[in-house]
């Protein structure tokens, strides 16, 4: 490391006033301004003075270097607001350097598995890189092009993400619907078509609607094997085939997941939430996860399990976002920037899952994203748009819509119907809480007991039970999406016992609502289906196959809503003289049970996930009717209230808590009166491991790395004074030492390790060359005093995305608070086991 860094000051201290920040997030800006005083004092006093002593090179010199050697940019002072001198761009003519934004030591700026990222550091790194590119823009055409490419690479990246997501979603939709129908039969002349597509242009003569379901081109397994379609034998053959296919698909899904990508199991949304809040899970968004999750979700949906592909679609889209972001070093190498792409990808995932682009953007904003500046909002919008467009042009269902259960609605609703809608919201909230509690209990049991050791067996048993119980009931036999479609649709467009009304000619006008035998039977079957779906979903969600929650909860709510809708309709039909039904609605014709199903579905989904705005938008994009926003809003709100009153958190937060992911929820308030000194590490009478800026030998540093397991070390002026200089991350220190061992000659055990460019005492004449590590030193760590209330500290962690903060007392370093300490503290005061936090 015999390079002479030339410092080019990027601006005077005056230009670094808070007003010039480029951060878009208003909150971040505000808090940063608050904390600026603290930081700048620290940096000015200890760090800034060191840097200012370096000479400033002229522009000519810089051009010389530009043309003669490769350039490296290095960010020294991470937080450029930390005092005027603390930020600078370092250029060094080097020989082994690759690209503009690579650091000198490979791997710096990356994080290890299960670590949290330092948002401030990454954003500052990106700002440095950006400034460097802007500066070079005038130099040559090539640099101009490079600058332009840098400027549009964010949009290009989300465009690609949208295109690929749309394509993958199309493949999954087509594949899943084909495989689902494989359980029932085959289209012998064109095996790649599912039942609906097989009979697509079948009836050349006019037929009544009931006939359209059995076309001659589609052959069920009983027809193929036993050459009959009716009778007990045919039923048994079909039953056996149904179970066999289900078991085959489920075992394939479970074993593929186990073999190739265990991270592909589950819904993925709790983990995406955690990752977006700044956590690293290596391989969670990798290409194997993408492949196995896509294939696995097709298989597990086809197996007839009570799960949906909508939640995993968010995970799949995030995988695509992660993989494609590596094409653009700006995003691929900067974890904080990468999360902007991931937010947009999550929006695209919901956009293709429901054919609801706006709903996707709002879902990303409301549910999954942590840091969501306006720039990301626009990119998410664009990404969702592209993905929805691609999926629409693939047209996977042949119905010109991106979801199987799209229904077109245009019937008005009555004012008094708001009462049953709110009632549905309450029922939905109750069902959701029951579901969350039961599911969490079961997941905890699975985690703690021997059951967790048999993941594949568990999947097979649940599949077998599901298939055996589901087949006899026509409503559970069909795929969940089809059931939702049936529940949502109006009578007349589909033929089902649900619409079997008797016609009574004695009633004038509309005698068509007298319930037939079929209707009672259908409602009975629906109640059975409701119980069955509720129970199986509790056991299914959390199994080691890809599984989502949206579809089952929509289905539960749909069933409840449809039953309530039929009830209200019959009420209006039988008692037309009650005052609320009088007027337009005296015949009961005005009540549409399908609308109730929709509202109920929204209520249960809202209760389970605690979404509000995005849920309503998704629902109305699903139905294409703006008219129903008010009923949906009423139901979603009622369901959220009931849910919040009965249970603490939504299913995703509950699962985050169960797994102990380090997720600092920005929705919850911290209401305890602790001070920073209570939470800080080390506790009293324990020593704090620190490095000194210019008096430690190489072997001492190595010994400290071996003895301790801290993820970073504060650097102080000397052990006696404990005045803070900066902060070094363990990983960076390790990498720098490895690098020095490889490249630096004359490195001995007693070489001094310098974290400053101007050591206080000059080096002895015959001492070995010192190891200069000032480049990896963060000169502007966020500091607080020991009397800072924890509310403020937690706020700083949430809004600034900190990884750690240093605690000082009278200007001397006292201790450190990391995100882990805060999460453990929160768990402790909530009377939970603090060691359950997953963290390194």
């Amino acid at each position, binding site marked *: 490391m015999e390079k002479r860094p030339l410092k080019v000051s990027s601006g005077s201290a005056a230009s670094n006033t808070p007003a010039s920040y480029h951060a878009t997030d208003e909150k971040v800006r505000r808090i940063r301004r608050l904390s600026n005083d603290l930081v700048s004092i620290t940096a000015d006093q200890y760090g800034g003075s060191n840097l200012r002593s370096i000479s400033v090179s002229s522009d000519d010199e810089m051009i010389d270097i530009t043309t003669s050697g490769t350039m490296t940019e290095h960010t020294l002072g991470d937080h450029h607001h930390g005092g005027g001198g603390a930020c600078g761009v370092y250029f060094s003519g080097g020989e082994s350097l690759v690209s503009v934004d690579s650091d000198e030591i490979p791997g710096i700026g990356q994080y290890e598995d299960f670590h949290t990222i330092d948002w401030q550091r990454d954003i500052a790194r990106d700002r440095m890189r950006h400034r460097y590119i802007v500066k070079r823009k005038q130099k040559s055409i090539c640099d101009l092009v490079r600058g332009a490419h840098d400027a549009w690479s964010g949009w290009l990246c989300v465009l690609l993400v949208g295109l690929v997501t749309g394509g993958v979603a199309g493949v999954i939709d*087509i594949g899943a619907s084909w495989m689902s129908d494989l359980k029932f039969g085959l289209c012998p002349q064109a095996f790649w078509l599912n039942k609906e597509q097989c009979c697509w242009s079948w009836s050349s003569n006019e037929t009544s609607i009931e006939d359209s379901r059995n076309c001659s081109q589609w052959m069920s397994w009983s027809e193929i094997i036993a050459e009959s379609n009716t009778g007990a034998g045919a039923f048994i053959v079909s039953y056996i085939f149904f179970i066999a296919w289900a078991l085959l698909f489920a075992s394939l899904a479970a074993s593929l997941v186990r073999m190739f990508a*265990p991270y592909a199991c589950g819904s993925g949304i709790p983990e995406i939430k955690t990752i977006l809040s700044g956590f690293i899970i290596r391989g969670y968004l990798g290409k194997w996860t993408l492949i196995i999750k896509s*294939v696995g979700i097709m298989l597990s949906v086809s197996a007839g399990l009570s799960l949906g592909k909508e939640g995993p679609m968010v995970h799949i889209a995030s995988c695509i976002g992660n993989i494609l972001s*590596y094409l653009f070093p700006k995003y691929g190498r900067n974890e904080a920037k990468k999360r902007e792409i991931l937010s947009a990808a999550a929006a695209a995932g919901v956009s293709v899952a429901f054919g609801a682009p706006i709903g996707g953007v709002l879902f990303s904003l409301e549910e999954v994203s942590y840091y969501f500046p306006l720039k990301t909002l626009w990119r998410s919008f664009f990404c969702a748009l592209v993905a929805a467009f691609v999926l629409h042009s*693939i047209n996977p269902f042949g119905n010109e819509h991106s979801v199987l259960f799209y229904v077109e609605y245009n019937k008005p609703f009555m004012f008094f119907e708001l009462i049953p809608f709110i009632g549905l919201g309450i029922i939905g909230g109750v069902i959701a809480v029951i579901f969350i509690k039961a599911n969490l209990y079961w997941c905890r049991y699975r985690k703690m007991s021997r059951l967790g050791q048999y993941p594949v067996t568990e999947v097979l048993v649940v599949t077998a039970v599901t298939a055996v119980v589901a087949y006899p009931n026509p409503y559970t036999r069909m795929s969940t999406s089809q059931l939702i479609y049936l529940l949502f649709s109006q009578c007349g*467009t589909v033929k089902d016992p649900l619409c079997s009304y008797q016609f009574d000619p004695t009633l004038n006008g509309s005698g068509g609502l007298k319930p037939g035998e079929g209707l009672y039977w259908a409602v009975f079957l629906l109640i059975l289906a409701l119980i069955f779906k509720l129970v199986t979903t509790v056991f299914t969600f959390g199994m080691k196959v890809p599984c989502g929650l949206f579809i089952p909860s929509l289905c539960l709510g749909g069933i409840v809503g449809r039953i309530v809708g039929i009830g209200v309709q019959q009420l209006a039909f039988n008692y037309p003289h009650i005052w609320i039904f009088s007027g337009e609605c005296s015949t009961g014709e005005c009540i549409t049970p399908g609308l109730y199903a929709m509202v109920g579905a929204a209520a249960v989904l809202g209760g389970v996930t605690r979404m509000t705005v995005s849920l309503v938008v998704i629902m109305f994009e699903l139905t294409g009717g703006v008219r129903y926003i008010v009923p949906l809003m009423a139901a979603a709100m009622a369901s959220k209230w009931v849910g919040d009153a009965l249970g603490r958190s939504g299913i995703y937060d509950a699962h985050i808590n169960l797994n102990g992911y380090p997720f600092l929820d920005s929705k919850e308030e911290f209401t305890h009166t602790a001070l920073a000194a209570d939470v800080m590490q080390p506790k009293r009478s324990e020593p704090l491991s620190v490095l000194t800026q210019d008096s430690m030998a190489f072997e001492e540093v190595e010994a400290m790395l071996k003895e301790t397991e801290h993820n970073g070390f504060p650097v102080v002026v000397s052990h006696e004074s404990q005045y803070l200089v900066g902060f070094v991350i363990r990983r960076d220190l390790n990498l720098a030492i490895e690098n020095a061992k490889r490249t630096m000659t004359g490195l001995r055990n007693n070489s001094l390790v310098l974290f400053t460019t101007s050591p206080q005492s000059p080096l002895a004449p015959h001492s070995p060359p010192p190891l200069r590590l000032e480049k990896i030193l963060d000169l502007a760590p966020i500091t607080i005093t020991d009397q800072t209330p924890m509310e403020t500290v937690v706020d700083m962690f949430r809004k600034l995305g900190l990884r750690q903060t240093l605690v000082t007392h009278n200007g001397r370093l006292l201790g450190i608070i990391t995100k882990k300490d805060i999460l453990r503290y929160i768990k402790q005061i909530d009377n939970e086991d603090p060691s359950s936090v997953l963290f390194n």
Partner: protein
Amino acid sequence: MSLSFHQLFVFGVILLSCVLYVQGQSYEDARCKCVCTYKNGTRLVKKLRVTSVPLSNDCDEVAGPVEEIVHGNTTQEMCSRCECTYESRNTNIIKFVVIIVIWVISLLVIYMLFLICLDPLLNKRVKGNYVEHTNDDVSSREFKIIDDISSSSQAPGTSHPMGMRGSNVLNRVGHQQDKWKRQVQEQRKNIYDRHTMLN
């Protein structure tokens, strides 16, 4: 390893060409779906009529004849209304996608069977080779660092150049595979044994 991939590839191509050759009855890509409502006696009856139309046409022309037929068949026809929608699809895309899906699943299953059955046998040879590296403390650390870097950049094309170790492709593929296996092993440990994640 690459040999088996090659074989799988050839197998896949044969499968694909077989499938493309077996052309079933041609399925139209456009249709008109008309739901006609008319009164038979006093009750409403709905009939469905599906007609295939050439791609360029839309349903306007189809709706007329349908109405006539309905007229002809019913005696006490009061009013009949047909709601026709033009729908289109692309069977080629469906065929292509389904075949790709079958292909991918069978590839994965074959690879899985390979890893379960054959790989333990083949790996005995590779093991000896591998121990040499881990004996050396410095090089194993270096190894770990490079692992970290390349595992963090998972996209194809940005992988870290590993010129220092065996430069031929086969070695590199083998190395990548080993690295991947270790990662999957780690994931399995997290999820199935320790239950720290994704419960």
